[in-house]
């Protein structure tokens, strides 16, 4: 079972890889534009930290780590998650999802792996670059357990991001025009740019609660950054792992429920 799915994943990856190799020049144009966009995430930080050395307990270097994680996840989102799932929306609209559903494999697996765009994942490199720069600014290096914890959190963050995306796409079964839902999704994700402590003062901390438990943005960028700094408590790490798994399970249930509603678009 597992072996079969691994082989399927291999085939899908190979197909996407070959397709991307045809458009090698995109590596530079996509890379340059995403590098340019990173600048919009950094500019406010430069302006803010010109005024203050420290905001809600986060120094410039530390906040830079959060932006680094934001950028890295954006790379994963654009390279591995977005291309496939925009494909689903297209399938639903045209009614070609039938062909996917007919195949003898799990539909969620098939639609989530149908397309990867490695060149779009340039932001992963930018994110790693930001980590190096941030730690150079901080004048310290991450501890080994901290790094290990952040690698674990990379897994949970990706899982959370993917699950949130599945939830968004499930909406495509209910609302017809969803291509702009993807923009809505990225603009909610934009709130993950800053350390979640920034939200404390808004509405007596309600926003922090929302972004930790309802839309788990804090888990995705702030937790891994804290882990790298060695500040994340073990129970928070455990909570993040459990939370991500529960969230993924929940989104899977929603997906199964919505797909039952699917009635082919044509005829």
């Amino acid at each position, binding site marked *: 079972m597992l072996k079969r799915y691994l082989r399927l994943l291999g085939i899908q990856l190979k197909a996407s890889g070959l397709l991307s190799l045809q458009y090698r020049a995109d590596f530079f144009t996509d890379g340059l534009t995403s590098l340019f966009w990173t600048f919009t995430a950094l500019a406010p930080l430069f302006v*803010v930290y010109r*005024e203050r050395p420290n905001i809600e307990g986060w120094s410039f270097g530390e906040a830079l780590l959060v932006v680094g994680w934001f950028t890295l996840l954006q790379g994963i989102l654009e390279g591995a998650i977005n291309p496939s799932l925009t494909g689903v929306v297209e399938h639903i609209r045209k009614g070609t999802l039938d062909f996917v559903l007919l195949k003898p494999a799990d539909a969620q697996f098939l639609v989530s792996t149908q397309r990867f765009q490695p060149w779009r994942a340039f932001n992963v490199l930018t994110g790693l670059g930001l980590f190096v720069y941030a730690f150079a600014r901080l004048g310290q290096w991450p501890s080994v357990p901290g790094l290990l914890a952040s690698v674990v959190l990379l897994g949970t963050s990706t899982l959370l991001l993917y699950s949130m995306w599945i939830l968004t796409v499930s909406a495509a079964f209910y609302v017809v025009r969803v291509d702009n839902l993807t923009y809505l999704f990225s603009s909610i994700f934009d709130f993950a*740019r800053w350390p979640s402590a920034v939200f404390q003062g808004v509405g007596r901390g309600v926003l922090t609660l929302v972004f930790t438990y309802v839309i788990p943005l804090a888990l995705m960028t702030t937790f891994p950054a804290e882990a790298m700094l060695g500040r994340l408590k073990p129970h928070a790490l455990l909570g993040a792992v459990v939370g991500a798994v529960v969230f993924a399970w929940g989104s899977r249930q929603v997906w199964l429920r919505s797909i039952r509603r699917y009635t082919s678009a044509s005829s």
Partner: protein
Amino acid sequence: MSARTVWRAFPTLLRVGFAEAVAYRAEMLIWVLSTTMPLVNMVLWMAVARDAPVGRFGEADFISYFLATFAVRQLATSWAAWLINWEVKQGVLSMRLLRPISPLWTYAVESIANFPMRLVVAAPVVLLSVALVGARAVPQHAWQWGFFVLALLGGWAIAFLANVAIGALCFFLESSERVLEVWLVLFFVCSGYMYPVELLPPTLRTVIDWLPFRYQIGLPVEMLTGAFGWEESVRLLGAQWAWVAALAALAAFTWKQGVRRFAAFGG
């Protein structure tokens, strides 16, 4: 095509545009919700100003500034560049060119016809700002309201004309979406969308004062929040409308040159 034709077609085009805006209201709402960037930055700046004001900005000033930014962004915006790129690629533009009125007018009217629907969103946000911050969130004198409307129209004109100029580049480049992305990044960083331009270092501010971006969002926002006296306002409005004139000339020129190269694809 004479000015008279345009004048006579105007009311009908407006009515059609408005009907379209009403028909696609759900979609528009999603677009509105996806412009969260001012809010993302609002929480950051509120955290910065919690203990002590930044320049002339206290916490409340940031609230009124960014809510105004959100409202202005709904009106001073344009998506003509995407539209032109799409229509050229699909060959739909040939249909528009057959009509006895320049496509540029129809693009402009489509955008203007959206104003009433967008006001439905923008006006409550301004009211919310008044509720949160008090009467000083909006102008106190009639002339300031007049200047605000003028600045808002100028802001929209800059957005629209720049979009047309960039969109027309696709006649030469096959696709000018990358150019648009570069413009958008510069817009994000330089327009006062993410932070008031006042907070930038003096040298950068001088540069930004000479660029068009800050006149698209920053100026209308500053007019709404009553940042300037009479003389400074007149000077900045002059600069804004000089940019409008320059961009109008540029847009007309690139469009005229470009459309000659247009060869309809498809049927």
